[in-house]
């Protein structure tokens, strides 16, 4: 069992100090109060600022608790912000793959579609932003389930609905599928939600690697999969590239 991480203890102390203060505090005051070297305190403050837990006042250079701390219990990333940041990458994914693109986030045990780009063939398609999809029977849902402990908790002990005869309804089978998603870094669904349809998705990560959503393509099985009914490697590559590009824009660059 590894010992406590010193810098996290110090960060927690800084947050407690700021929370107890009536106004803003300067680096010097913080370092002095906690018996830290000024440089050490400054480094920790900069990191906390990066994740939104503290804010620096531009005029005085002093610190206070950040807005992100106040919203810690609610959504990490505004879904409209996510769409706005991802829109160019989602368009590029649709153009390269020739398939419809969706971005999903977790909402009350289901996948909320926050962005939808039409399949670029100019057929009549309806915008389905705002619709809710099942977690266990979609590629987007599996990408979220595999990387998000909260999402995984949503399906634990719940009877999984069968949409087709291929829908994974057995908890152990689903767990194995999710382990594979984590290992490969992408998820797929072949005729598990509706007959003749398949999908590929990959997780979108924000600061610190936290999964904030998933992006993927969906379409007819014969276009999404190769002759062996395996998701086409080229499409998987496109989806993963798009997910990485959005993640990079959101500050989750190491993934």
């Amino acid at each position, binding site marked *: 069992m590894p010992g406590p991480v010193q810098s996290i203890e110090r960060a927690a102390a800084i947050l407690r100090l700021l929370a107890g203060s009536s106004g803003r505090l300067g680096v010097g005051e913080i370092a002095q109060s906690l018996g830290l070297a000024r440089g050490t305190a400054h480094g920790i403050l900069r990191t906390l600022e990066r994740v939104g837990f503290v804010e620096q006042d531009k005029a005085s250079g002093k610190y206070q608790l950040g807005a992100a701390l106040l919203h810690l219990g609610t959504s990490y990333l*505004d879904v*409209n*912000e996510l769409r706005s940041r991802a829109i*160019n990458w989602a368009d590029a994914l*649709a*153009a390269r793959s020739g398939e419809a693109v969706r971005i999903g986030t977790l909402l009350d045990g289901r996948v909320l579609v926050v962005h939808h780009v*039409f399949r670029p063939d100019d057929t009549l398609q309806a915008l389905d932003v705002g619709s809710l999809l099942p977690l266990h029977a979609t590629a987007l849902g599996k990408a979220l389930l595999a990387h998000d402990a909260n999402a995984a908790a949503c399906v634990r002990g719940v009877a999984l609905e069968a949409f087709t005869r291929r829908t994974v309804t057995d908890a152990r089978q689903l767990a194995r599928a999710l382990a594979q998603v984590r290992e490969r870094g992408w998820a797929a669904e072949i005729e598990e939600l509706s007959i003749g349809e398949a999908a590929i998705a990959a997780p979108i990560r924000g600061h610190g690697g936290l999964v904030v959503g998933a992006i993927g393509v969906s379409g007819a099985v014969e276009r999404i999969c190769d002759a062996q009914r395996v998701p086409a490697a080229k499409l998987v590559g496109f989806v993963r590239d798009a997910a990485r590009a959005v993640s990079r824009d959101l500050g989750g660059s190491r993934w």
Partner: protein
Amino acid sequence: MVERYVMSIDQGTTSTRCILFDHSGRLVAVAQREHRQHFPRPGWVEHDPVEIWRNLERIAPEALAQAGATPAQVAAVGIANQRETTVLWDRLTGAPVGRALVWQDTRTDALVEELSRAPGAGIVTERSGLPLATYFSAPRIRWTLDHVPGLRERAERGEVLFGTMESWLIWNLSGGVDGGVHVTDVTNASRTLLMDLKTLSWDEDLLAFFGIPRAMLPEIRSSTETYATARRIFPGVRIGAALGDQQAALFGQTCFSPGETKCTYGTGAFLLMNTGTTPVRSANGLLTTVGYKIGDEPAVYALEGSIAVTGALVQWFRDRLGLISTAPEIETLARTVEDNGGCYIVPAFSGLFAPHWRSEARGIIVGLTSYITKGHLARAVLEATGWQTREVVDAMNRDSGLSLRELKADGGMTADNLLMQFVADVLNVPVERPMVVETVSLGAAYAAGLAVGYWPDLQGLRRNWHRAARWVPSMDPRRRESEYDNWRRAVERTFDWAKPNKRD
């Protein structure tokens, strides 16, 4: 070597971008560089033309490198540019005469006031299709001639050249002092106040009215034709197109038939409707402008309506009121309520543009009651963009006798689903977003590719256009009417607010 790409240069107000597109109209590489904004006095806005040229020298090779391409693989380059910004330079040294005077610059207001009272002022709108205003190039040329000693004489001798940004870049690309080609395209020329909209040539009477020597003006050419072959930055690449940025967006959205309309939603918004091969005069405060001219074909005209404040209202809500921390959060906040709660915001921050043209109007928030929350205000912010679009579209329908059947939208605000749905609802037509949102750059690339046969015809370009999203109207007609009535009453309440400054 196979020509794989078309290059576009978007010389915009804040930055210059260089993008490479492939044959399917897909974006392959992007390089961008911002330039400095100079504000030497209140109301003065300037750019350094040399800085902009140097930026192009950096970003074009950068874009080529990203794609792993050589100039030999580029079929042609097209230029889209910020319109009306005025550059004067010395033909012999290539050095600019001071900085470029930007389209936002209002230093010519007293001059314009004086000119509008001068005999013959009536011909300005009649011939150019535009109102006599500080917005356009001619007063800026005149101002510079009046303020730089000896400049007029040099201009008359042909030693000083005028151009908008595309002229400056083409002249430099094609050799500069060493044989540079001095040209402009019809869309840019149509924004100077000096071109006859029907003949598409410089008008002697307008030149006399503004006191501008003909010798300094570029030759007016089509929007798509090979003006020259580049001798600098990317030697050997044909320069195949130039268009004002909003016209380039119209082209990039493939609005090639009369009635087809695009709206670019940014800080402000620009609606352009293709009106076919005859210029349509506006009785409703819109501008008549050239949309594009392909080679030897007849010019295609457009009606233009500009809205001063759209995205800027969201920025104001974020930065000045601090009710949201990022612009997209406006949608989240607006969705916390069902409707506007009876509240309307008219963002007449510096008066109202089309179709009202009330410079003395100022912004208001009306319908406040104790019931109103910040969610209602957020709704009212988004709805203001919708209703302003509706007003311009109504004016366009009246002027053109055409009726809008769908709106092709682009720009950053198209990421806002609530807004796009609202625009569809209040216009009562579908709103579509194209898959390539960089419509300005795409339009310049399309035009250049067309000039050199990289793309065969307009039909080929249309096939490249793909719909990324479509919003269908779903508002109850009675509600649409009563809400529009409320909006119009709110607009009336903004009029006659600002009083003329006594000091002037």
